[in-house]
């Protein structure tokens, strides 16, 4: 019996469970009596930030969620979009930040497991995983432990379930020292006429539990994720769940086998807040009641209480409402896959959740007020301090040295050490592996359809200007998909911020959403699913609470009707190189400024959404008609880093022409102006004419060929040298 179970239920215990005095007052008025311990537990997790989105909900509603190709937007387990031929892509990104600091391997592994379930619970076979990771300062001794555990955890889970991990991103910054970010994204494919939703229906229909047994792990994980860390964070290890990818693999196959029949009425995975949230949400969405007999819940340990079973976050479990005449058929499928299967309750017409255990009624809560009266906060916001204006700057090192320093730095160094621990080819459909194109590309089995996927965010831009940063994250995801030739369809967002109770953090949150919304609207790139992670703070021994950089990570998805038309970023031989998009030489918040001057000054680059769309539509059309043979968007590090990356990934080097007249060379080569691409084409003159006719800024950059990167001054850096410098960082940090 847990310590909490011995205490009387009162305002003090409610506070310990994370409910404010006002929230507890609402609980009392909904119940009309003092709740039982189990009931208090249910209210506290359902009204936690993690489950109720109480600080963010009002703002999330402002994001655009619709487009003709959107089949299901936010509100389901994952977003669903039309990809043609009667098929749908189902995808979502979700954070597992807090557990990944406490126990990096299990935190990351169960993050992957959880997002996989969100996708296959809707009927999709998962076809790709991506992840957006943020770690602390590489010099912090904790960072190495966390990188090692997270990478092993992501790989350990994804490799075993047999879903290829094809892409993602990694940043390092001291603001993540005590609070790394692990955002995992899964993309699945389903038939549009076989999509499964979570709203329960059919009074009397049985409720079945499948998957792993319930244990005492992860109790109150959702509540932990809804508060700040203190110096005792590591003592919270028992709240971290433990994953079993083998069981997940069996669960995927068993669920998909059952989904091929017409047995399922509704299905939802047991994620955060476990049995509580799945039962409450399924019944609540369907407007029915639900009665569970907890004696029938498969249990891993003896003597578990109702409270423990309802709050457990044991992994690899699903809740299914099923047609009564199909129960035995379902049981046979789960027994074939050697998974637990139990009828644990049924739907009622009472609109209440009733839990029985050992002959006692442990909970009896009306569902409508539990959902409708969940708190919504419009927390105070404060404007962020504007960044220090950028002063006139010099170039102390020259172009060549600056390039080498940039491609060596942690944010631009080769991620090969990480990718090589992720199985990226299982499934046999991976058209572009990690690093080979701006977005990962997989083929949808037995079709010519390709899916392009990416995750993007530039947290340093978001800190300098959250609105611009929010727009930039969306625009970069759109651009990365475009750069492969794919048509961007929709995004999933994973909004990682500090404590919403700090007005300046809340201000960042509100601004970032405003910027994201603008970009999503301008680019017809709606948000179809997402997740909010707040309280990403670490309280140091001095009592000072440190927030992470605002990190609204965007997971983008696009489609190619004919995947063979996709292009990668590797430099092809014998091509003319062009720069698409306008260059103003914006060095504010650039990596050049940070790595060469140690400065984080200036406004981030302007995001001109009209130019973004014009340039992108032009590039995509020229890829699809075969004119452009390789394409790389310009992002962190600017133009010269982009060209160097193409050389490192490709079969040829290149020779570059002199920079734009009237602009400082470092601003031309390292400015991070948005909406730009480097493209390789076979027939330069006709391409130039075409761009001119379309009024697209297009500048001849040089020619591909040879083996190295030849700068305008005639100096050549060999490909081997570039690769060696670019590959230093991870092995040096991790294998020492």
């Amino acid at each position, binding site marked *: 019996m847990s310590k909490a179970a011995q205490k009387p239920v009162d305002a003090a215990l409610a506070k310990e469970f994370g409910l404010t005095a006002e929230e507890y007052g609402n609980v009392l008025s909904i119940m009309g009596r003092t709740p039982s311990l189990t009931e208090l537990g249910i209210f506290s997790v359902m009204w936690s930030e993690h489950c109720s989105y109480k600080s963010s909900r009002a703002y999330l509603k402002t994001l655009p969620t619709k487009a003709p190709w959107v089949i299901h937007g936010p509100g389901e387990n994952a977003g669903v979009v039309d990809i043609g031929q009667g098929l749908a892509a189902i995808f979502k990104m979700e954070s597992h930040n807090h557990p990944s600091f406490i126990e990096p391997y299990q935190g990351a592994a169960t993050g992957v497991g959880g997002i996989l379930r969100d996708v296959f619970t809707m009927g999709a076979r998962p076809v790709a995983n991506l992840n957006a990771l943020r770690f602390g300062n590489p010099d912090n001794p904790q960072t190495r432990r966390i990188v090692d555990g997270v990478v092993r955890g992501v790989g350990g889970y994804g490799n075993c379930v047999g879903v290829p991990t094809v892409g993602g991103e990694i940043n390092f910054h001291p603001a993540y020292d005590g609070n790394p970010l692990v955002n995992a994204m899964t993309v699945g494919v389903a038939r549009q006429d076989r999509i499964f939703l979570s709203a329960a229906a059919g009074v009397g229909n049985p409720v079945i539990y499948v998957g792993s047994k319930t244990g005492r792990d992860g109790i109150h994980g959702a509540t932990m994720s809804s508060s700040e860390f203190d110096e005792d964070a590591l003592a919270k290890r028992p709240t971290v769940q433990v994953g079993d990818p083998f069981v997940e*693999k069996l669960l995927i196959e068993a669920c998909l086998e059952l989904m091929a029949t017409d047995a399922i009425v509704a299905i939802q995975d047991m994620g955060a807040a476990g049995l509580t949230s799945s039962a409450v949400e399924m019944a609540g969405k369907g407007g029915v009641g639900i009665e569970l007999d907890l004696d029938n819940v498969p249990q891993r340990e003896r003597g578990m209480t109702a409270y423990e079973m309802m709050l457990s976050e044991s992994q690899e479990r699903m809740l299914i409402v099923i047609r009564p005449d199909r129960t035995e058929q379902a049981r046979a499928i789960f027994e074939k896959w050697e998974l637990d299967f139990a009828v644990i309750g049924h739907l009622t017409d009472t609109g209440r959740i009733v839990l029985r255990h050992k002959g006692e009624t442990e909970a009896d809560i009306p569902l409508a007020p539990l959902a409708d009266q969940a708190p919504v906060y419009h927390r105070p916001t404060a404007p962020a301090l504007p960044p220090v204006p950028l002063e006139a700057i010099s170039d102390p090192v020259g172009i060549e040295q600056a390039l080498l320093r940039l491609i060596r730095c942690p944010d631009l160094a080769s991620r090969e050490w990480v990718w090589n621990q992720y199985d990226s080819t299982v499934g046999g459909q991976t058209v572009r592996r990690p690093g080979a194109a701006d977005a990962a590309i997989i083929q949808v089995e037995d079709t010519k359809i390709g899916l392009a996927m990416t995750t993007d965010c530039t947290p340093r831009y978001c800190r300098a200007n959250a609105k611009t940063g929010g727009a930039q994250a969306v625009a970069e995801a759109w651009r990365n998909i475009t750069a492969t030739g794919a048509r961007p369809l929709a995004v999933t967002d994973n909004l990682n911020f500090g404590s919403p109770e700090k007005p300046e953090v809340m201000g960042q949150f509100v601004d970032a959403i405003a910027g994201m919304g603008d970009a999503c609207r301008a680019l017809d790139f709606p948000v179809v699913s997402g997740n909010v992670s707040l309280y990403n703070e670490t309280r140091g021994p001095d009592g000072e609470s440190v927030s992470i950089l605002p990190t609204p990570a965007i997971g983008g998805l696009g489609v190619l009707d004919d995947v063979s038309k996709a292009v990668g970023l590797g430099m092809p031989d014998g091509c003319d190189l062009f720069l698409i998009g306008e260059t103003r030489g914006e060095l504010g918040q650039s990596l050049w400024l940070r790595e060469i001057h140690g400065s984080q000054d200036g406004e981030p680059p302007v995001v001109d959404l009209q130019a973004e769309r014009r340039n992108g539509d032009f590039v995509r059309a020229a890829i699809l008609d075969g004119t452009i043979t390789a394409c790389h968007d310009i992002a962190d590090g600017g133009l010269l880093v982009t060209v160097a990356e193409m050389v490192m990934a490709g079969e040829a080097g290149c020779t570059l022409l002199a920079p734009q007249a009237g602009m400082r060379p470092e601003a031309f080569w390292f400015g991070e102006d948005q909406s730009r691409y480097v493209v390789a084409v076979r027939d330069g003159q006709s391409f130039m004419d075409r761009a001119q006719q379309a009024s697209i800024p297009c500048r001849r950059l040089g020619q591909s060929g040879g083996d190295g990167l030849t700068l305008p001054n005639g100096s050549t850096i060999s490909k081997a040298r570039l690769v060696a410098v670019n590959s230093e960082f991870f092995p040096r940090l991790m294998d020492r």
Partner: protein
Amino acid sequence: MKAGIVVFPGTNRERDMAIALRSVTGVAPRMIWHRETELPDLDLVVLPGGFSYGDYLRCGAMAAHAPIMPAIRRFAQAGGHILGVCNGFQILTEAQLLPGALLRNASLRFLSQDCFLRVERNDTAFTRHWKRHDVFRTPMAHGDGNYIADQETVRMLEGDGRVAFRYVAPDGRLDAADVTLNPNGSMGAIAGVFSENLRICGMMPHPEDLVDPLMGGEDGKPLFTGLVEALVG
């Protein structure tokens, strides 16, 4: 060619293997559930990659005792052809249908990357579409591929020409001590071995994942083309 792919709980490359086989035979192979006790009439049995039984205990150890295994043993004794890839190779060693064992990679990390294999002999059903000492590229993806056997076994394998493939440089250079060439640290850079009758082949890398130019090449296809030629005649 009538091919069957054995599916254990946790197998995860059966679809890749089916695609590769179908691309050369034109027909979908049979999927054989681990709880079966008889094999249908087959020319080739494939044990594909994955994490059978979660790789708990030891990779392949539990699958080696699955209900289907006695039938596979009989198939082997009758001279049938068996291909084991990755976890399938591990299962074949655990079942003692192939000699040796596969330890954790020397780096103690899962490795997913391209590697280059040298074909050590081309007079087998598995390798006949290559020339001896041809080098081909293939993806590998495993945590436990570090081949080891006792000295006597290695001498026997080498002496009897039972090494199927070795990890080498793209130009065929062999250096078992160089981790960039022999990534998992295998003894003698051994990537695959044959049974005594050359009809059972186990290998760690995944030729089935490189049979389509769209996915980066067809370097793995000769293995499957050769099997069809040999087994259909």
